[in-house]
């Protein structure tokens, strides 16, 4: 049938949502490798387990909602959510932690709101926060980085890791420990210099925290891959990292015992880079214009620093992103770009005069 009505444009670019999602998954590989190298097989098991759970639960919900399975599963969005959650969870955490978090992310945070494109909150971060609040012990037990393992101990091998995850046994003492942010937060009465000398997490690090600096560099590399493929614009990540850096410069106070830590420590520890490039760039739950993304990114950087410095939690990406998700529609109203032929930016709330 050559003569039929089809709407213009007829030509179409090569990118597809599925490819975008696949590229996001691929871009996590440097970070995943760094995590696996420094903290053992746990992260990889988390990721695979989360992916399986995500695909099965997404399929079940689609079936209940009477949607075509292949079409919606084919967008890979559930896989992206699962990969990001799996990377964020502590390695070797019990299997049910991963499953509960993933089911919550996919079913409650995404599908119940209408599925892909309609979720107001970042699904992975909703799952993460639910777990963090419900199972604080499991969620705060991290693995000691490879370089700091006591003499004669090593990370469990793959089979042993699987056994630990599925038996829900806690890993052996000695291979678990605090994260640098955690350790820094809970060391009182010491100046920053003293902490850096006494705590091997810092004293043996290059510039931020043993193992963690590599993980952050890995996610930074992934972020740069995505940026160069134009999956998103630089505005969000740069605004977030710049605000985080600025805040840590302003409140550095030359390293007293009250100091919340240096700029490098904040930029290359915890989930800073993963948050900047993989979490806040989730387009569905973030703001839409470039100016909006600057505000949104800056807000997240600001919140992350405030919670890390003066809040109860050592890291804060998930909370900061969810709080900023709340603000996104509001920010959108006041950050419209200036359209061709108009002298001023307009506000979305303007009414046409009746």
């Amino acid at each position, binding site marked *: 049938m050559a003569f*039929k009505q*089809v709407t*213009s444009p007829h*030509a*179409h670019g090569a990118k597809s949502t599925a490819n*975008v999602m696949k590229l996001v998954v691929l871009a996590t590989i440097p970070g995943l490798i760094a995590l696996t190298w420094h903290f053992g097989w746990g992260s990889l098991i988390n990721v695979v387990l989360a992916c399986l759970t995500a695909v099965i639960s997404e399929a079940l919900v689609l079936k209940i909602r009477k949607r075509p399975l292949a079409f919606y599963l084919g967008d890979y969005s559930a896989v992206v959510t699962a990969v990001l959650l799996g990377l964020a969870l502590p390695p070797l955490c019990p299997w049910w932690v991963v499953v509960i978090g993933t089911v919550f992310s996919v079913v409650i945070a995404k599908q119940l709101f209408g599925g892909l494109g309609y979720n107001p909150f970042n699904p992975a971060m909703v799952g993460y926060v639910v777990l963090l609040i419900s199972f604080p012990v499991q969620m705060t037990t991290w693995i000691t980085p490879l370089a700091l393992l006591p003499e004669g101990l090593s990370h469990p091998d793959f089979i042993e890791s699987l056994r630990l995850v599925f038996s829900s046994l806690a890993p052996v003492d000695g291979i678990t420990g605090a994260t640098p942010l955690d350790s820094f937060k809970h060391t009182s009465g010491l100046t920053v210099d003293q902490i850096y000398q006494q705590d091997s997490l810092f004293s043996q690090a290059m510039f931020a925290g043993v193992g963690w600096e590599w993980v952050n560099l890995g996610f930074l590399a992934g972020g740069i891959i995505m940026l160069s493929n134009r999956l998103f614009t630089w505005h969000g990540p740069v605004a977030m990292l710049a605000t985080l850096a600025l805040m840590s410069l302003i409140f550095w106070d030359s390293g007293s015992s009250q100091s919340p830590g240096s700029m490098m420590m904040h930029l290359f520890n915890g989930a800073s880079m993963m948050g900047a490039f993989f979490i806040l760039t989730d387009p569905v739950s973030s703001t839409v214009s470039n100016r909006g993304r600057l505000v949104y990114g800056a807000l997240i950087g600001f919140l992350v620093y405030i919670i890390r410095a003066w809040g109860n939690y050592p890291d804060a990406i998930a909370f900061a992103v969810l709080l900023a998700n709340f603000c996104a529609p509001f920010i959108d109203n006041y950050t*419209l770009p200036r359209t061709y032929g108009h002298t001023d930016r307009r506000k979305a709330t303007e009414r046409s005069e009746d």
Partner: protein
Amino acid sequence: MRQTWVTPGGVHPPENKHQSVTQPIGSLPIPEKLVVPLGQHIGAPAIACVKLGDKVLKGQKIADPAGTVSVAIHAPTSGTVSAIEARPIAHSSGIEALCIEITSDGKDQWIALQGIADFEHTTPKTLLSIITDAGIAGMGGAGFPTAVKLNPGFHRPIDTLIVNATECEPYITADDALIRERAEEIIEGIRILSHTLGNPSNILIGIEDNKPEAIQALEPHTQDTGINVVSFPTKYPSGGEKQLIYILTGKELPSGQIPADIGIVCVNIGTTYAIKRAVVEGEPLVSRVTTMTGEACEINRNYDVLIGTPVSHMLEHNKFDAEKCSRVIMGGPMMGFSLMSKDIPIVKTSNCLLAPSVEEIPHNEPAQPCIRCGMCAEACPASLLPQQLLWYSQAKDYDRLQSHNLFDCIECGACSYVCPSNIPLVQHYRSSKSDIKKAEEEKIKSAQARERFEFRQQRIEQADKEREAKRAARREAALQAKKTAAPNSAADIVAAAQARTEAKQLSPEQEQAKLERAVSSAEMRVQKAQSKLDTAVASEEPEDKIKILSAALSGAQQKLEKAKTRLAEQSN
């Protein structure tokens, strides 16, 4: 090198222009029947001035322009008018409109042509009427009557003439081929345009840098003419009028204004060629260069096509394979529209006929949900937020659509082109635009209806009030009368009757006027009776009739006397 400015957004779809420029502009055999629509331009459709069965010559006017925003239509070849009826025309919604069908006699015989060699000594006004009578409307795509554009009025002095040779749509090479082969005539056309506009100080030909041959062809003819050929990097949609104005001048056309408001007139380069032919040779617009391209046709090249040539005729001569073809498009792959019938004729705005194979332009994928990735916003040349517009289009939130400047969307399709979810964004915007326009018209209509209704209510109330007031007055009078008539004696009744007559009696002025009216009407009657009697006497009517008439006259005279006496009494 002249400075150029860079527009935001834009996309780089595969150009696919090389296929159709390997051969020079060709011509097709004259089709047996040509279908010429009466509305090929923006504005009122022309009015047919031939009848069924009339013999016409090539170039003979077959329809007159209807009003100022309209152009004439001419017979594309010699033959017979074989139908004047509604036919499917080149339109995105596949509608039918009035067309004149001409059955060719195969002779292709021109009417006598008379051109003006010395246009510099011809007034712009004369030139404008030649352009309208030659049926020239913008040939870039919109089809706006060129003479209207060239006559912006004294309050809009023009300092810049922009000739649009951008041809930014993929596949299309009609302008490119035209420039390569007929650059001299194009420049002549531009000089005519410049003359009608009072010789603006800047004359710019805007052309993308993917047409080096065309740029080279223009160069020898533009030397020392003050005409600048300005080339700039290829990017879709640089050829949009608003975009081109910005690229060449750095000025933005304010929203809702026309280029003439900022001293600019923008004309397609194909139109300048048509103007030259019309003015210098006296040839009306009966053919145009159209690109025939796409993998579903074996031959890809440009043709000088007679207006009214059915698409089927073009396809057949280029070995069209319907099996291979995904859709037949009039225009380019970005803004062109698909055709629903092969009988649709080529019109003045048809720059391309694209018959792509399924591999070239695959069937549309089903749309996935919008993930607000923002690639559309990065591609938008107008700096809109297409993803928000989609959201509000689906919600039918007209206020938000307008605050997001929906009406500044030029429907270039760059957003849909980049959308990874295959969402037909432009279609959503088109439909929302027409919904809003409709809603606004209805608002105006209902406002008028409300005004009328309110006025009527007010009028009825007023009348009611007046009536009520009269009634009240009467009631009051009756009450008064009753009061005075309370003792029910005969004398009182008489008195009451007298009072009523007195109440009915007119004031002296009114009485006077009434009597004067009586006198004048009595006078009229006397005159009438007199004249009747006179005519009767003159025509020697029977005696008894004359008697009756004279009696009537004397009666009338008596009545007049009476009336006069009464008036005299009253005056005293």
